[in-house]
């Protein structure tokens, strides 16, 4: 991005309150043109609120919204260069597919020939070519959403907002639509802002993910970053499955530290910088489960639960002094599982875990 080129979307200290509830707290965010950014979080975290603020359906209590560098905080939705794909397609039932898609063009009195051309183009983009004369009630859920997508994109908006557009669809269609969205994003090169509570979806689609919690952004970064280096236990638990164990860092060095997990002390080249009370964040797939041995780093525990996953096994392992069961996912095609009640040795690569500071008990 060249210096001086404005951000596609810039959120500047936006706070939104209604009644006694603060839905958004002083949000700052900048989206570069062509980026696919996802707002991820549980319901009520403010992600949809922020989207509606960008679209213009809500006026923030404080702060401003800039599109291409221009302050649009006071501009009503129909005048903003932003279009939205909603959770429900909301196609106009009295118009056929072609007229639905052409809606925004008709508002601008675009000549008929151009309308026909652009509608055909938009429908081809979402792979529904030739369905101009169909009516909404003749389409499937996935098809309706694609028409809604075409309808939103035909006006070539600077930013496309998507508010959980796939959550009302069946799983199989959802996966198919994810691919479609990625492709459409690539082909149009537009800026997409996507809202979802499905963390798997967010990792698959985005250039950057912003994890929301209670009205603020807990962490923002590339999907790999969010997944591998979660900034807080909340992010760790929300994005993917995680073990989040309360531990104590006994001696922090520059490259190595000693941590006590339950009643066992481990030393290794863990991430430095954290001392005292900490969270150990460990992804289940990073845990290796082997025969017990008395040498080296490692913990020994007892298998309390076991489930076959096709690609491997998932274990729940009890560790001495640790209140929660450790989750481990072992991918091994021909491995023999460790039965429930057996003793196993648990270990992981130091680089695969995270230490986060912990307040309180």
């Amino acid at each position: 991005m060249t210096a001086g080129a404005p951000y596609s979307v810039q959120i500047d200290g936006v706070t939104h309150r209604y009644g006694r509830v603060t839905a958004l707290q002083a949000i700052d965010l900048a989206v570069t043109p062509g980026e696919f950014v996802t707002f991820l979080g549980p319901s009520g975290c403010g992600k949809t609120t922020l989207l509606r603020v960008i679209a213009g359906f809500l006026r923030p209590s404080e702060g401003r919204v800039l599109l291409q560098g221009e302050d649009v905080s006071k501009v009503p939705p129909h005048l903003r260069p932003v279009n939205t794909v909603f959770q429900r397609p909301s196609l106009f039932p009295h118009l056929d597919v072609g007229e639905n898609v052409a809606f925004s063009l008709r508002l601008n009195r675009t000549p008929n020939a151009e309308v026909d051309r652009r509608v055909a183009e938009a429908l081809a983009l979402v792979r529904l070519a030739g369905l101009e004369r169909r009516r909404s009630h003749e389409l499937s859920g996935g098809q309706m959403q694609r028409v809604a997508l075409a309808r939103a994109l035909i006006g070539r908006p600077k930013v496309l907002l998507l508010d959980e557009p796939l959550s009302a669809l069946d799983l199989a269609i959802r996966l198919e639509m994810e691919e479609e969205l990625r492709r459409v994003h690539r082909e149009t090169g537009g800026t997409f802002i996507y809202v979802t509570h499905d963390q798997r979806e967010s990792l698959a689609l985005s250039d950057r993910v912003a994890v929301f919690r209670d009205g603020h952004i807990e962490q923002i970064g590339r999907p790999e970053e969010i997944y591998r280096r979660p900034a807080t236990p909340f992010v760790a638990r929300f994005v993917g499955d995680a073990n989040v164990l309360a531990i104590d860092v006994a001696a922090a060095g520059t490259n190595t530290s000693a941590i006590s997990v339950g009643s066992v002390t481990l030393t290794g080249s863990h991430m430095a910088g954290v001392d005292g009370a900490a969270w150990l964040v460990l992804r289940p797939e990073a845990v290796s489960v082997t025969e017990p041995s008395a040498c080296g780093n490692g913990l020994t525990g007892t298998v309390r639960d076991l489930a076959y996953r096709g690609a491997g096994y998932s274990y729940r392992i009890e560790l001495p002094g640790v209140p929660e069961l450790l989750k481990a996912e072992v991918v091994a095609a021909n491995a023999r599982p460790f039965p429930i009640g057996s003793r196993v040795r648990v270990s992981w690569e130091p680089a695969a875990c995270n230490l986060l500071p912990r307040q309180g008990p």
Partner: protein
Amino acid sequence: MQGIDRSPLSGAISVAALLFLVLPLTIVVLFSFHETASLSFPFTGFSLRWYREVLSSAPFRDAAWNSLMVATAVAISTLVFGILAAYGLSRTSSRWRAPLALLFFVPITLPGLFLGLALLVFFAQAGLKLSLVTVALGHFIYVFPYFLLIAKAALDRMDVAMEEAAADLGAGPWSIFHKVTLPQIWPVVIGAASLAFALSFDEFVITFFVIGSQSTLPLYIWSSMRRTIDPSINTISTLLLAVTLLLFAIAFVLTLRRDLARGRAEAAA
């Protein structure tokens, strides 16, 4: 939820429309209590003299009594015939359903003038003397479709599977109706009967054509309107309003209670 578009213009129009509807009626009620015989502002003071006068007037009491009798007869007959017809139309898949429904709903589309005249002519042809009976017959035709509409909707909304389950458990048709169906629909049905009563009580046009020498309350109002110009008409009108509003309130509470209860049950499920 449109956060910004609160439609202030339509809001203002709505308030104006409400005032337009309510104010004229309020003025009528207000002047029924006027202490003088004047029907124009300023309003000098409250008095119940017109109520005393009206309520002690024999023609008024006769007319009111007649209206009451007719309305009760109409409500009951509509209830009986109506529940049967509603049940028959709702639970059938016969090809007669559509034509019969059409027949029953025709009176709604016909102006009272035509209904009244057609009945007048028919009674004349059949040699039937005009009386309160002919009035009740006329009201029945007029009121029936409204009752049917409401009752049938309630029956359609009901889950038929309940009746089937009862049948499966060995209940006969009357048992099913009175142990399964009726408990479900009785509030709506009573509400609809209440509506039927109110419609009959208020009816003027058909009555005008098919009544004999007696009078009903609306007819009494009409003849008063052509004779007197004092607040006694306001009083009669207010009494009429009170009765019909009371019936409306009953109907409203009965049908709404059912909807509220159902809404709560659905929300909890």
